């Protein structure tokens, strides 16, 4: 009888352990990205939470933006990616263009209010190009660090084909997008950007991991992702505009943004520690609100 209890208990343990392990799936690098797939962009009709809402005065006429489909090659495979160009494509050869590298979540729909806000800088003189990285929105594939760089470079190459030159290219990186903006500014594959704007950037994946574990955990214990912005920004001399919410709980302003900003060696640095703003609310918490945000971005990108 006792032997039977032992055996049943041992079987029970093996069964429970097996179920336990099978029910679990390991954390892998892909889990860091949080893409949302879609068959068509809802843009103004997007029902999800975008962090902030804009009134109808920020609407963009349908004739002033268009979907752009591109093929991105990361050296191994070719992936179909989709972006939206806001502005006059026929004036890319004379206008300044902001390449908007979005954060790790959702897709273009989520960032559409931010694009509309940037469009307030004046679409007569500026264009904005936002691209869904591979695996996001209507873009095929799965996201990975080097794929993100390849995708945005593909967009820059397309802009170059339309007549853009590096002196009119401004990189805008929001959150994770800061890694893409910094990479392609520090090591351009095609055009060399003239300026860079970083909103709520990360310092490195290592510092993100350590913010999460509270310990000085080596990043290689967790992930092969690097996003080593802090080393790369040391080689960037282009003018930098940095915006970060003081209440950002996603990417801490001091352990991520401030130490990154401090490493920029350029002489034209503009820092905005936005009081009371969290990760998503930097524009509306700006001094003078949304207008203040637009005016400061406009001043930064206009000043030659």
């Amino acid at each position, binding site marked *: 009888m006792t032997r039977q209890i032992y055996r049943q208990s041992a079987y029970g343990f093996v069964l429970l352990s097996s179920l336990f*392990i099978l029910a679990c799936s*390991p954390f892998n690098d892909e889990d860091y990205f949080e893409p949302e797939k879609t068959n068509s962009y809802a843009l103004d009709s997007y029902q999800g939470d975008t962090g902030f809402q804009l009134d109808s005065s920020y609407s963009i006429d349908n004739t002033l933006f268009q979907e752009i489909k591109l093929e991105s090659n990361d050296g191994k495979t070719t992936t179909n990616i989709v972006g939206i160009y806001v502005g006059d494509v026929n004036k890319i050869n004379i206008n300044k263009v902001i390449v908007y590298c979005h954060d790790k979540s959702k897709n273009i729909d989520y960032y559409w209010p931010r694009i509309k806000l940037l469009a307030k800088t004046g679409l007569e003189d500026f264009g904005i190009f936002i691209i869904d990285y591979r695996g996001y929105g209507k873009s095929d594939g799965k996201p990975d660090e080097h794929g993100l760089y390849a995708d945005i470079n593909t967009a820059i190459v397309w802009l170059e084909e339309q007549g853009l030159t590096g002196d009119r290219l401004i990189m805008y990186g929001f959150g994770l997008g800061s890694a893409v903006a910094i990479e392609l500014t520090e090591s351009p594959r095609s055009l060399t950007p003239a300026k860079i704007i970083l909103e709520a950037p990360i310092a490195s994946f290592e510092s993100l991991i350590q913010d999460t574990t509270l310990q000085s955990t080596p990043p290689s*214990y967790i992930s092969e992702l690097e996003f080593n912005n802090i080393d790369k920004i040391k080689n960037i001399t282009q003018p930098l505009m940095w915006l970060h919410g003081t209440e950002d709980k996603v990417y801490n302003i001091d*352990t991520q943004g401030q130490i990154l900003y401090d490493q920029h060696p350029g002489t034209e640095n503009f820092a905005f520690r936005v009081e009371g703003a969290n990760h998503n609310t930097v524009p509306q918490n700006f001094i003078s609100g949304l207008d203040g945000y637009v005016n400061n971005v406009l001043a930064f990108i206009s000043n030659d």
Partner: protein
Amino acid sequence: MQPLNKNQWQVAASVGGPVIEKDSRIEPIPLSSVSAAYGVSQTLTAFAGIHPGTAVYGVYHVDAGFAHELLAPFNLQPGITYSVDLNAFMDRQDSQFKLYPQLDINAYWLMPYRNDYFYVGVSNWFELATEKAHKQKQETHWIPSLHTGYTLQYDSYGFTLEMKYLAPFTNNQNLLVDYYSPSQNGSLGAYISMSRKF
């Protein structure tokens, strides 16, 4: 938890880890360990373990330490033990080495007419580094957790179910991992283990 008798051996296997929310599912991170313990005296047990679960992720983790009984259980009075454990980590990718000391304090109650026991305790994990990434100051050096469990003891076999509340004083919002917790702090942990004494 409960010290071994002098010259007694025990081997144990355990699976479990912090509970996270992933893809709308709630699941423990599947960590595991295999350990051996030896009764140096009636109140002192030495132990060592390996952790195959982290090796799957490319991180080798071994630990070794001792447990000492300060007070033996008697009727409703719990047995009180503490253990000192050194955890060593090294990863396959970059050969980065880390050492984390751990100090646990436990109280256990023997069940009447059985060899089962119920226990509660606090575990303390220490970060020795003074500097973290990019020459920033390492602010946190003490990460506590609370645990409770029950061990069914059938003669030489033991089966344990344990729940932990890891880092209960640390905010868990907006981190790389969505920890599952009854509050906005820390993470729950779930563990099961099996042991055999010789």
